[in-house]
């Protein structure tokens, strides 16, 4: 079942096109990472999904409710944590959460129960009486997250949830997000690629307003040009080895990086994605009787995918 369906979302600010014809769908229970360089349109897309920024064209549905025609109903299904977490400075943590819970239509005994649960999950229980103006960045971030969790919304939209946190806090938030995925669908945006690799089961890469890719991290890295690359260092003649390597079927190109200062040769073998040429390469070099000291198959990361998709050359 699709939790979010975006259909040709388009947003322009005057002449500047922030998001161009974005269509994607997100299934229930998925953790989706929005990736992209600064100003790529991540935040704009998220703000459109929340109904805060109206799209110039196109629409989206959240849990089956149109974000424009049936905005209030769609908003009842989502919890949103904006970038930089705007909060009322003059309220205490529990007062703020109480206000937010009531705004979300929670009433009666559930208010207290929901606040308690959200504070517990975000590690705020000891700070519930603190004034928000006295909280550190990390705690403000948690208050924002607790706010998004109030009312157990089906969909959580988190704009850079780990921005400005220290490594320990990042780990806690990451664990929290992963634990949320059992009951919620999560959309998050971040710059930290390793984070996405660790917790997301779907990645949407946006650059200059265009959706470049939307798939699982494994699939994205699998199809990458860098995927079949092997680097080799050996000592001996260059020419026969390169010739024999190039004759080998999946190899597309052999790049010679030249003799290293210590006299060893380094070559890079580019092959079809998903192939492993290490065994053959080692066999060729040892057939010549040359010593081999390094043979490494490059494991593509999301960073490679990101760089390849958003590179401006």
């Amino acid at each position, binding site marked *: 079942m699709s939790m979010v369906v975006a259909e040709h979302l388009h947003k322009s600010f005057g002449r500047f096109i922030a998001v161009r014809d974005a269509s994607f769908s997100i299934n229930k229970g998925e953790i989706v990472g929005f990736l992209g360089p600064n100003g790529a349109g991540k935040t704009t897309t998220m703000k459109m999904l929340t*109904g805060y920024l109206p799209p110039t064209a196109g629409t989206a549905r959240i849990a089956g409710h149109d974000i424009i025609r049936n905005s*209030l109903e769609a*908003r009842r299904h989502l919890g949103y944590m904006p970038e930089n977490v705007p909060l009322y400075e003059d309220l205490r943590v529990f007062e703020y959460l109480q*206000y937010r819970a009531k*705004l979300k*239509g929670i*009433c009666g005994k*559930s208010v207290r*129960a929901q606040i308690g649960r959200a504070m517990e999950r975000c590690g705020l229980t000891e700070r519930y009486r603190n004034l928000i103006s006295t909280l550190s960045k990390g705690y403000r971030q948690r208050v924002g997250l607790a706010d998004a969790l109030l009312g157990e919304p089906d969909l959580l939209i988190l704009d850079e949830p780990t921005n400005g946190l220290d490594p320990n806090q990042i780990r806690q938030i990451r664990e929290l997000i992963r634990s949320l995925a059992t009951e919620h669908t999560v959309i998050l945006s971040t710059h930290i690629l390793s984070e996405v690799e660790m917790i997301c089961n779907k990645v949407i890469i946006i650059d200059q307003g265009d959706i470049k890719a939307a798939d699982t991290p494994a699939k994205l890295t699998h199809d990458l040009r860098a995927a079949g690359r092997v680097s080799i260092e050996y000592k001996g003649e260059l020419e026969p080895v390169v010739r024999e390597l190039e004759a080998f079927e999946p190899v597309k190109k052999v790049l010679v990086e030249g003799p290293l200062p210590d006299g060893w040769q380094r070559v890079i073998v580019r092959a079809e994605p998903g192939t492993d040429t290490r065994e053959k390469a080692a066999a060729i070099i040892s057939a010549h009787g040359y010593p081999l000291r390094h043979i490494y198959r490059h494991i593509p990361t999301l960073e490679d995918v990101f760089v390849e998709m958003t590179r401006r050359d």
Partner: protein
Amino acid sequence: MSDPTPGIQRTRSWLVTLHTIFAKELRSFLCTPFGWVLLACTMALQGFWLQAAIQTMSKATGEGVMYYLLNNIHFWFYFIFIFPLITMRSMAEEERLGTLEGLLTAPVTTTQIVLGKYLAALLFYITLWLPLLLYPWMSDIGNWYTQLRYGIAPEGRIIYHPADWYGPISILTLCGSFFIALGIFCSSLTRSQIIAAIICTCLMIMYYFTGRVTELWGEFPAAPLFHYLSCTEQISAFSRGLVDTRPLVLYLSLAIFTLALTVRVVDYRRWHR
């Protein structure tokens, strides 16, 4: 209409959400120094001009103390500034902090936000005038003291009629209901409180002088319109006890129009960014 998550008590009532916003706004007036400073300053100025009003009253006769208190230029000196002070924060602060985003991504309509803020500001404005109701009580104490000190001396008694208070309080509430709406409208135009306050003060002064046009130009064909809009004339009439329903229609319709415009502006600023 699917319920987002079962097991949680929820309400869909429009009024409950309105009340939540109203209560939060009222709280921000009464639980911060802001409201109390404003209240203290207004009371101090009222007391200051009360002295002047009693001076005038001792020379002229016929009207109650409220008439002399509200019908002089001193009153307008602080009356005009009350509105920008009360309302300049309401929408501008929300936008500057970015909390408007949080509000509008919750299941809350713009109308609820504007109306909640308006009602809270209006209630706070009315509380600013409540100290006026202490004057009869203070007169009683004065009379009691005079009797105790000098024996019964009818000419030394302060004479007042509780009815003197009905007119002034109702006209202050009425024109306040429009001026507060005007202030919230100004606040929605910008993210800077200062700019909101400047625009509001400017509009207030313009409105004040609209009411005095006939004093400068004399009577001319369009003069009845300016008489109709004149806040000073209405206050004068009401504080003499001449309660009229025309200002009721004028101010309530102006307030509703301004609030509707505010809702449009808030949405417009979000849609055209």
